């Protein structure tokens, strides 16, 4: 780890020094928190992208279903598909992006 740079605004001086052991402990804790936060953020971004990709695909699924003249045989599958789509929308709406199921 490099030095800390200290800019004294009153004395108009810039100096540097190594971190004290206490400062190193704080910085290590910062890094741990930062890694955890980045992991949560990465999961949320990935989940959101997965849900958006599924929503995009679902548009075609819905078009195909509504184009059917007599969709009786496909109704069950479509209800299941719509339920999954709703779940995805609810996740996006509520920001529950820790998972995509």
């Amino acid at each position: 780890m490099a030095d800390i740079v200290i800019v004294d605004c009153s004395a108009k001086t810039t100096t540097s020094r190594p971190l004290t052991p206490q400062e190193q402990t704080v910085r290590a804790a910062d890094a741990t928190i930062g890694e955890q936060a980045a992991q949560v953020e990465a999961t949320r971004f990935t989940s959101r992208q997965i849900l958006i990709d599924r929503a995009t695909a679902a548009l075609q699924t819905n078009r195909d279903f509504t184009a059917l003249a007599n969709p009786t045989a496909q109704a069950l599958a479509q209800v299941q598909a719509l339920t999954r789509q709703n779940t995805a929308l609810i996740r996006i709406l509520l920001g529950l992006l820790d998972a995509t199921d």
Partner: protein
Amino acid sequence: MADSKLANLTTVAAVDGDEYLYLLDDPAGTPLDRKVTAKVLSGWAVIAETVLAATATSVSFTSIPATFSALQVVAQGRTDRVLARDAILVRFNNDSGANYYDEQSLFLDTAVSGSGSAAATSGNAGRFCAASAPASVAGLIVVTVPAYTGTTFHKTWVAQSFDSQSNATGGQENVAIGGRWASTAAITRLDLLPSVGPNFLAGSTFTLYGLRGA
């Protein structure tokens, strides 16, 4: 007074706004001696600036004068984190207690997300580019802290940042942040540090401005 050379007058290091400055009004027409208070000449003034000559694990502005109405940090740089971007943290008065509350909105192409934190040990100031970002690309952060000398309310800040994580459309990130430091103490020190880093790269620039005038 009248027969003093300007160069012989005592230099004042800082002003509080009530001082008079001499003006020569209408110099090309009918010159007139006039005065103006310093507070009229308000605006952002550079308090201090540093351009890192070598890597640094943090930058600390200390002994911040209490003569301004607001502070603003403008920083441009990169960290050595093994990713395309790194969050930049802010601390006031070297306080690493659980006293920071903030909310950030992240815009990455069409993806928008938000996250908040409470009782954190530092505040979010934005993002810098990091090791796997395109070469020669730096992140930009602007942090504004009004009423930093006040002792009635907790201190608040707003920040805006931009980092270019790649050359793709989806690699341009804009972050907006609002935060609170749960302290009524006047701010005399402001630190910026990489969230993970551990270091800012050489060439990173940090400028602290103060807003003149009330």
